[in-house]
């Protein structure tokens, strides 16, 4: 179990924000951190990893104390049993796929795990390829394989699939779930993607302005929670019939057809708009 209480003054694009959260996550659970940009999600991951020092609080992983401000304990990232997958992959360009994974292992570690990981992540055929020749999805597979090579207790995923196309994303989500189960990991995922959260997580933590708004199951959260998700996109066409008006919006390369009969606002094709999800029902708003 990971048990943590974190307090930190953060400097965000909207000014100063005080992050204050307290959470317990049971072992082998898959937890998603969800919230708007600047809510403090990535900072939480960075503090757990030891890349950022909290102003106050503590982090306990099973029996080990990773951080305790009152006792002046601050374990370095090297000593924490973590795997971290970065949004920009953070792969080492001077090494090929296999070398990136081998790098994670200690000198005396069993090297058989490398082949197992390559197979699990579908990279066996690409093992000797240079990093710059891989696609985004392939790079993220390498990053995932590398992060779990030394069998960490806690896997931290910072929007790992945000820059990957939809087909590849669905495949990678399946791989993530397999890896999570196969290696008995406790996983924390930062994500904006509703499908992803529903597909992967046991619990979703809704974070806004540095505090936890809600902690529940994904189904409960998206169906009945006080959740409002805002996305921006462009209107690509407006279809009208006698009774209804449908506005078609392009959102992250996905077409969304929204019944806009109830809205008085006249939209025009090409206009940039906000699509607000109120408990999974999309509503269009002018920007």
């Amino acid at each position, binding site marked *: 179990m990971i048990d943590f209480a974190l307090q930190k003054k953060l400097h965000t694009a909207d000014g100063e924000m005080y992050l204050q959260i307290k959470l317990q996550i049971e072992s082998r659970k898959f937890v998603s951190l969800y919230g708007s940009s600047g809510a403090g999600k990535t900072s939480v991951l960075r503090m757990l*990893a*030891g*890349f950022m020092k909290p102003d106050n609080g503590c982090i306990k992983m099973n029996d080990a104390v990773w951080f305790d401000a009152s006792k002046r304990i601050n374990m*370095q*990232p*090297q*000593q*924490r049993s*973590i*795997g*971290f997958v*970065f949004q*920009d992959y*953070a*792969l*080492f*360009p*001077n090494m090929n796929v296999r070398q990136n994974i081998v*790098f*994670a292992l*200690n000198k005396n570690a069993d090297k058989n795990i490398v082949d197992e990981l390559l197979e699990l992540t579908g990279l066996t055929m690409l093992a000797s390829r240079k990093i*710059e020749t891989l696609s985004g999805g392939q790079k993220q597979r390498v990053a995932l394989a*590398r*992060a779990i*090579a*030394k069998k960490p207790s806690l896997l931290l995923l910072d929007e790992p699939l945000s820059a990957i196309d939809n087909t590849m994303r669905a495949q990678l989500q399946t791989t993530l779930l397999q890896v999570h189960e196969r290696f008995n990991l406790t996983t924390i995922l930062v994500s904006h993607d509703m499908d992803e959260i529903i597909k992967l997580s046991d619990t979703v933590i809704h974070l806004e302005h540095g505090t936890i708004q809600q902690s529940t199951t994904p189904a409960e959260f998206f169906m009945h929670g006080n959740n409002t998700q805002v996305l921006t996109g462009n209107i690509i066409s407006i279809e009208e019939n006698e009774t209804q008006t449908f506005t078609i919006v392009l959102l992250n390369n996905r077409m969304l057809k929204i019944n806009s009969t109830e809205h008085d606002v006249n939209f025009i094709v090409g206009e940039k708009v906000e699509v607000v999800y109120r408990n999974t029902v999309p509503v269009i708003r002018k920007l």
Partner: protein
Amino acid sequence: MIESAPLWLTLKLAFFTTLILFFVATPLANWLASKKNIFKTIAEVIVSMPLVLPPSVIGFYMLLAFSPGNAFGEFLEKYFSVKLVFSFEGLLIASIIYSLPFMVHPIQSGLSSLSPSLKEASYSLGKTKWQTLIKVLLPNIKSSLLTGIVLTFAHTVGEFGVVLMIGGNIPGKTRTASVAIYDEVEAFNYHSANVYAVILIVLSFLILFIMYLLNRKIQVKYL
């Protein structure tokens, strides 16, 4: 009369200055490239001082410091039997200090240009700061390392003021090619001065040409 000794001495000085500076400047540049604080800003200013100060200023103070008449020079001579004034060793130390920014700056800027997540990824995989520097960071800034090495070498080949102040003009010991040119001009031996000068021009051209050629290869490989 053209002698080969000043040319060999110039190359020897440039080689050892570059070699020592590479090992001194790399950890220093790594320290300077990470999170800034007031001490690092002060250190950056000190490292950059040789870029703006006349060589004679640095040479003058080093001459005073190394002189057996002063505390530091006396200490070295008394306890280590080392005399730095008018010696190759003194010349080498002066060159290292004078060429410091030419090695530190390219490496520092190369390290700063890398994504911070590379370093963090390596730390999360349990690697120490040293292992991260040697195995992850430096191999990904080959072009900056090469620039630092070549600029330091070329700059040392072209040193004059500091060399003259610290080393004087002792044939075979401290008389480098740049000092030899000055000496020959003073004696109206324009032909000899011209030969030394042409050799230095050709040498500098070749060094820089090889650097640009190799840098192009590195960039092609990584793009």
